[in-house]
């Protein structure tokens, strides 16, 4: 085993605190990573329960179960919970767990700030969800919080704004921690272009977060002052401009989409080479493509608002810049395919989720290209086609890769292998039902069904029923995920340190489960090279 006895002895002299206090006060990156992942899982099921309410109501035309106001709250809070509560914390959790292990650092650079940024989140989401119990109900104007509709909310309005500020502060602190850890705490010899792709994609994501989360915070602060302090940033009657909110919001919102997806590219770039037993094809190109996508994400925002009316030159610019994103994204997709080409492939759950990502994210990308065409977008705007598009990007895109990442590193974290059979069941049920759920929504959108409505014309009934059946199937099959993790934590076949035959990288040089403290003695140059260049034919352990 490459992790030396000296280093192991160094790790074991520290004791691990126990009980509730351990989790409240912990500054250990593995503990905080675990907290983020548990929080994300809880929010995934909270947001998922809201999705079930939405699909239940839409199972048949007519109003069945909930009133329209509550339905609108469901769509709004489902989105906020999934984006800010499930996907983003999951990425931060994976970053916390893996970045120090992958760059040879003993912990994140600012461990106390790390603890603080996590513990802001439960307060933020309690505040958001308490909105359901105050007069006027939870926010119902959509996750984009457009004024003037959103300013007409009830007592939950300031609670939502404060919750968003807390989430934003948490994200910015998390991002700062990631950047300063990667830029300063790398082991000697771990040059930037030797870093694993997951670290690279997270570094770029963190810069995006710092650039755009303050923009969202600024936008919601102005909403707050418009509502309570008599300003007119977005009120036309006072000299303000509601469309300006949309510009500011989407200047945040579009890079946010890449915040949700770039770490997914990193995970796929780790998983596919491992299970193809080949090095990643075009490592440098992958890094530059990620950076290009991040740059382009800042100059495409108005494609979300073609229909507000803008000069033709503006529409052309945003249409063409949006289409340009297909180039670096295409580089990535072809590189992943080239990595698999003539590889010795095996199909364990992480690889299955990564391959599903490749197919289904590409479908989401293609419908994105359709939406980028300005004249066509006038037809698609605010229809279920848009709902289908972004769910293809976020569910088989972000969520599937989070699952791929968890299934990939779980044996490293727990020291046990999980049930491959159950993992494959989880994959196949998810992959089938996600398509039954979202593919028909393309048809509904093209036929003209608007989004965010609790009732619809009878011509949309059939595909809505199919979509709801897919939704219930997908929701139920996700219960397997925590069960598999729980079983894996409790026991199972002992995991080796390398776990997967084709795995490469510093984290696989550590024993499984990873000790509480790692890399207190920085890994040697030889170990870094060995980790980066391990080939299965050289043997694992």
């Amino acid at each position, binding site marked *: 085993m490459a992790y030396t006895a000296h280093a192991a002895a160094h790790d074991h002299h520290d004791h691990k605190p126990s009980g509730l206090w351990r989790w409240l006060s912990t500054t250990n990156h593995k503990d905080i990573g675990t907290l983020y992942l548990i929080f994300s899982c809880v929010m995934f099921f909270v947001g998922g329960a809201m999705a079930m309410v939405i699909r239940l109501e839409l199972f048949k035309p007519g109003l069945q179960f909930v009133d329209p106001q509550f339905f609108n709250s469901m769509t709004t809070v489902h989105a906020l919970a999934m984006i800010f509560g499930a996907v983003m914390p999951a990425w931060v959790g994976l970053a916390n767990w893996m970045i120090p292990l992958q760059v040879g650092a003993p912990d994140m650079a600012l461990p106390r700030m790390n603890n603080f940024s996590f513990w802001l989140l439960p307060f933020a989401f309690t505040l958001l969800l308490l909105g359901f119990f105050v007069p006027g109900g939870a926010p119902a104007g959509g996750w984009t919080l457009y004024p003037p509709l959103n300013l007409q909310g009830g007592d939950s309005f300031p609670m939502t704004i404060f919750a968003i500020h807390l989430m934003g502060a948490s994200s910015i602190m998390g991002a700062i921690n990631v950047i300063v850890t990667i830029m300063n705490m790398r082991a000697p010899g771990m040059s930037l272009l030797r870093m694993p792709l997951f670290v690279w994609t997270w570094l770029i994501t963190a810069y995006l977060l710092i650039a755009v989360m303050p923009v969202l915070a*600024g936008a919601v602060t102005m909403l707050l002052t418009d509502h309570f302090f008599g300003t007119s940033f977005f009120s036309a009657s006072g000299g303000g401009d509601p469309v300006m909110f949309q510009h500011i919001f989407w200047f945040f919102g579009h890079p946010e989409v890449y915040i949700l997806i770039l770490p997914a590219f990193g995970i796929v770039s780790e998983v596919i080479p491992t299970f193809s037993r080949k090095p990643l094809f075009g490592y440098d190109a992958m890094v530059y493509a990620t950076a290009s996508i991040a740059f382009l994400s800042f100059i495409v925002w108005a494609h979300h608002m073609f229909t507000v009316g803008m000069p033709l030159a503006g529409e052309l610019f945003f249409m063409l810049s949006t289409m340009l994103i297909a180039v670096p994204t295409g580089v990535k997709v072809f590189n992943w395919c080239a990595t698999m080409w003539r590889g010795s492939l095996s199909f364990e759950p992480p690889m299955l989720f990564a391959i599903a990502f490749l197919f289904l994210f590409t479908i989401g990308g293609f419908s994105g290209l359709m939406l980028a065409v300005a004249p066509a977008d006038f037809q698609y705007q605010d229809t279920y086609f848009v709902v289908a598009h972004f769910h293809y990007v976020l569910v088989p895109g972000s969520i599937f890769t989070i699952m791929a990442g968890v299934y990939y590193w779980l044996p490293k974290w727990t020291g046990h292998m999980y049930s491959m059979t159950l993992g494959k069941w989880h994959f196949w049920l998810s992959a089938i039902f996600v398509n039954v759920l979202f593919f028909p929504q393309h048809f509904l959108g093209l036929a003209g069904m608007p989004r965010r409505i609790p009732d619809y014309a009878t011509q949309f009934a059939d595909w809505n029923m199919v979509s709801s059946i897919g939704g219930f199937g997908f929701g139920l099959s996700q219960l397997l995920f925590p069960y598999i993790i729980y079983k894996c934590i409790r026991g199972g076949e002992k995991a080796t340190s390398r776990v997967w035959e084709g795995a490469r990288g510093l984290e696989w040089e550590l024993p499984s489960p990873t000790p509480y403290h790692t890399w207190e003695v920085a890994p040697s140059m030889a170990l870094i090279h060995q980790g980066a260049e391990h080939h299965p034919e050289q043997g694992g352990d």
Partner: protein
Amino acid sequence: MDDRLRDQQRRRARLMAFALMLLALAIYGGFILMSVHRSHG
């Protein structure tokens, strides 16, 4: 050797974190200021 290296790394990290925090605050304030001018808010 390792302790000295880690201390040095942490010092640089704190400085960089402070600069990034200032950058985030500047973006926050900058967007609000820009909106004040744009909307006569």
